[in-house]
């Protein structure tokens, strides 16, 4: 939570101030937040006004009122010594809350100060802090407090001060991470260059960032402080001269058989306060996260204004003559959308139709955000949470996948349709060896033995060009390079003899030299196995290398489709033409006849496209 707050835009002081007032206002609009604030305000008010509101002196005992039932004189009855329960409850609220706040204050002062120093200056101060924290945390807090109690005696304030010390690492860590995150930001450098003093930088730029997280932490720790303080008093280790919720609980517990209702009031007060504190912290955190922008919501995709299937037809080129291969996959009027929290639907694919024949390589090309990856995922029925096929059909080998049960879909994946992802390093489970990730699907989908699957996996690893299959087999994903990982993923995609491979930008994340090797491997495998491939790419070079047919995609729609040759020869749609221009200039750059001046501009452009491809 703190991180998302920190990594948001560099906070200019005024902006921060505005954001903060927004935060306060939004807390009041948040129903949970408002309820928690009201409850906490009431409790604090009762604590402050205890001497005004309390009908009697909380420590005056009257022998006639021992365990007295509620009456006009004692609205909540009398306790084991004949003291007025209501008065005691009010004063207990005062001391319990004050004790917890005192501990939190100490913790915040120690933790924030040391966190600021350690984060800002680092070096030895940081090392020392880490050591002190590990010593503090080597013991359960209660044990430290018991030991402290043996030293300082039953003083509420001294013991809660020690507890504040125990809690301080929470604030330390929070501040430290925030400071380290911010101290190297440009605006802090700029402030430093502009001659702003360290103290001023800390105050203006850093404290403003950590303020809200500190309040959240304080609310949660105050709840813990109340619990621990009550626990100590309950054990009879507290200051007998002060009345606290723990004291009341302890007294009521000893008379549980005679007057069980005595337990209710201090329990209720404690539970109410603690829950209010936690809810307050949670609500503030929610609002803070919302203020920092929705974290990682569906990023891809263009918001479609028109919610219905688009009707304009793509430019379609005539099919090459004599291609009699039968259809394997036919996508018709596919619409993909994501359900939004407000109940609306965000459409990312607006009526895509495309067709892949047996043994054919079909390229789906378009810029990022055009919906091509979404199309690929919906064919596999592996859209991220919230995403679904809204309309249209995905007919694979005679079956409409859009209406298939998840159970039947599982049988199809791997065995009939498989997948090569874009980013090799993030597509292998980091906790399992590469070998086991190849073997497991084969055992599950093909029903072969582990030993047989292992042999096949080793063969495949050799087949995809890994020099030492045995070594790769027993490696973990973090032990291989990106190019090797992509070969492993290709091996996985062909391991169960699928008829259709969906390859989602299989070369984009790789170095240029490795890209060529991977494309060559794909071409070889396709030739050998006769498998159909639907390859998603933004690069016409890849299309020229591999594809029989191409569909050009823009804004969730196919704008032009046909045999690769025909489109290369005569691109019609302006978007296709624009895509071509980039690659043609690229080609010219390699050509011997280009002017040196051209070459310069071209080099610049190609590095730009390369970068944007990442």
């Amino acid at each position, binding site marked *: 939570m703190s991180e998302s707050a920190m990594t948001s835009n560099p906070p200019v002081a005024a902006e921060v101030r505005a954001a903060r007032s927004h935060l306060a206002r939004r807390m009041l609009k948040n129903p949970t937040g408002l309820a928690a604030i009201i409850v906490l305000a009431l409790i604090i008010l009762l604590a402050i006004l205890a001497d005004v509101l309390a009908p009697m002196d909380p420590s005056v005992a009257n022998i006639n009122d021992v365990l007295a039932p509620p009456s006009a004189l004692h609205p909540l009855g009398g306790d084991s010594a004949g003291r007025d329960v209501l008065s005691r409850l009010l004063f207990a609220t005062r001391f319990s809350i004050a004790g917890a706040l005192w501990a939190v204050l100490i913790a915040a002062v120690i933790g924030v100060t040391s966190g600021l120093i350690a984060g800002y200056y680092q070096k030895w101060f940081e090392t020392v802090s880490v050591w002190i924290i590990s*010593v503090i945390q*080597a*013991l*359960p*807090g*209660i*044990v430290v407090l*018991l*030991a402290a*109690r*043996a*030293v*300082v005696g039953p003083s509420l304030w001294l013991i809660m001060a020690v507890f504040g010390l125990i809690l301080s690492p929470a604030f330390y860590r929070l501040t430290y991470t925030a400071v380290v995150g911010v101290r190297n930001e440009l605006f802090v450098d700029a402030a430093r260059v502009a001659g702003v003093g360290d103290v001023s930088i800390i105050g203006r730029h850093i404290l403003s960032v950590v303020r809200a997280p500190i309040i959240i932490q304080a609310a949660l720790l105050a*709840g813990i402080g*109340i619990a621990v303080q*009550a*626990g100590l008093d*309950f*054990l*009879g*280790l507290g200051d007998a001269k002060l009345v606290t919720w723990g004291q009341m*609980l302890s007294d009521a*517990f000893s008379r*549980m058989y005679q007057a*069980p209702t005595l*337990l209710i009031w201090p*329990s209720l007060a*404690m*539970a109410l306060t*603690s*829950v209010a504190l*936690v*809810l307050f912290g*949670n609500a503030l955190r929610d609002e803070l996260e919302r203020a920092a922008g929705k974290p*990682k919501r569906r990023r891809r995709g263009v918001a479609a204004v028109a919610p219905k299937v688009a009707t304009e037809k793509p430019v379609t080129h005539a099919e090459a003559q004599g291609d009699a291969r039968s259809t394997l996959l036919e996508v018709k009027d596919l619409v993909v959308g994501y359900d939004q929290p407000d109940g609306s639907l965000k459409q990312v694919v607006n009526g895509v139709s495309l067709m892949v024949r047996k043994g054919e390589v079909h390229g789906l090309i378009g810029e990022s955000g055009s919906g091509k990856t979404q199309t690929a995922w919906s064919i596999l029925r592996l859209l991220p949470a919230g995403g679904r096929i809204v309309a249209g059909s995905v007919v694979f080998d005679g079956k409409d996948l859009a209406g298939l049960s*998840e159970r039947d879909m*599982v*049988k*199809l*994946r*791997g065995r009939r*349709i*498989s*997948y090569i992802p874009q980013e090799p390093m*993030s*597509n*292998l*489970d*980091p*906790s399992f*060896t590469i070998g086991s*990730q190849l073997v497991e*699907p084969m055992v*599950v*989908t093909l029903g072969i033995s582990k030993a047989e699957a292992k042999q096949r996996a080793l063969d495949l690893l050799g087949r995809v060009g890994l020099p030492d299959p045995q070594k790769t087999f027993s490696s*973990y994903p*973090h032990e291989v390079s990106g190019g090797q990982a992509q070969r492993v993923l290709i091996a*996985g995609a062909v*391991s*169960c003899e699928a008829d259709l491979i969906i390859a989602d930008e299989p070369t984009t994340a790789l170095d240029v030299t490795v890209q060529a090797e991977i494309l060559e491997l794909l071409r070889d495998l396709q030739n050998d196995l006769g498998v159909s491939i639907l390859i998603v790419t933004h690069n016409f070079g890849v299309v020229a290398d591999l594809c029989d047919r191409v569909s050009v995609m823009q804004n969730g729609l196919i704008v032009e489709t046909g045999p690769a040759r025909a489109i290369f020869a005569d691109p019609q749609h302006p978007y296709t033409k624009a895509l071509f221009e980039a690659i043609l200039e690229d080609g010219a750059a390699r050509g011997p006849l280009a002017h040196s001046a051209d070459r310069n501009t071209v080099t610049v452009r190609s590095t730009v496209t390369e970068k944007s491809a990442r």
Partner: protein
Amino acid sequence: MLRFILRRLLAGVILLLVVSSVAYLLLYLGAGDIGRQILGVTATQEAVDAKNTALGLDQPLIPRFLGWLGAAFTGNFGTSWFTSQPVVAAITSRLAVTLSLVIGTTIITAVVGTALGVWAARKRGAADRLVQIVSVLGFAIPGFLIAIFLVNVFALNLKLFKPTGFVQLSVSFPGWLSTVTLPIIALSIGAIASIAAQVRGSVIDTMRQDWVRTLRSRGLSENRVLYRHVLRNAGGPALAVLAVQFVGLLGGAIIVEQIFAIPGLGPIATNSTAQGDIPLVMGLVVVTAAIVVVVNIVIEILHGFLNPKARIS
């Protein structure tokens, strides 16, 4: 692996040394006239002086500390000032009780917390909200308050359990179970809340990972990916929380034992603190710190087992 354990043990011993030094020095520097405290205000000054001499308190602090340290290394933590029982004997007879309670609670916490967390992460919607509400309540309401509530409802009113007492695990398992059920529930609710929240969060995060989609594209069912792959990856952060919870439970047990009159470390911790029985307090400090060190090593080994990047060759 062995070298790793040895290295961590060495670090643990250093930590124990630091903790016990700090505790020893603070306890003795903070204590007043110990002989007077033990014998009471009515004792003569001669008797108090004799007591102090008998306890070796007339010696300077540092040599006394070194003597204590040397004896501690041979397993001798001295004798209690009030019961004259050897500290080691007083602690070991009760340690097993507390540990059986805390370890039982940890196991329940891990199982129930993980199940709830996975359930909330998978079903979302109503299940998710329910688990979140339970998490808030469990986190907010102190364990001993829950314990008092449980005693009231299940032992006093419904008479399903005995309100107090304890049967050793070695004597009778059903007997042990019937006496620790309520304490374990009281202790575990808060810990379960933390584990469930952690597991829920990390399962949701892990399910968003790219490799989950890729594994499913290979023909593995969602449940298989969840239980075999996602849980293992989500386990690391949950283990870290479990370690923190264990330490917290050790402290929580002290209070809960008091409520259920369980003869664990709790009662002697409370008494020795109230009386200022420093040898016993020191023994408790060292023992709990040692348990924390061992638990952290065990958790780190488990973490390495789950996560190959954290594995140490």
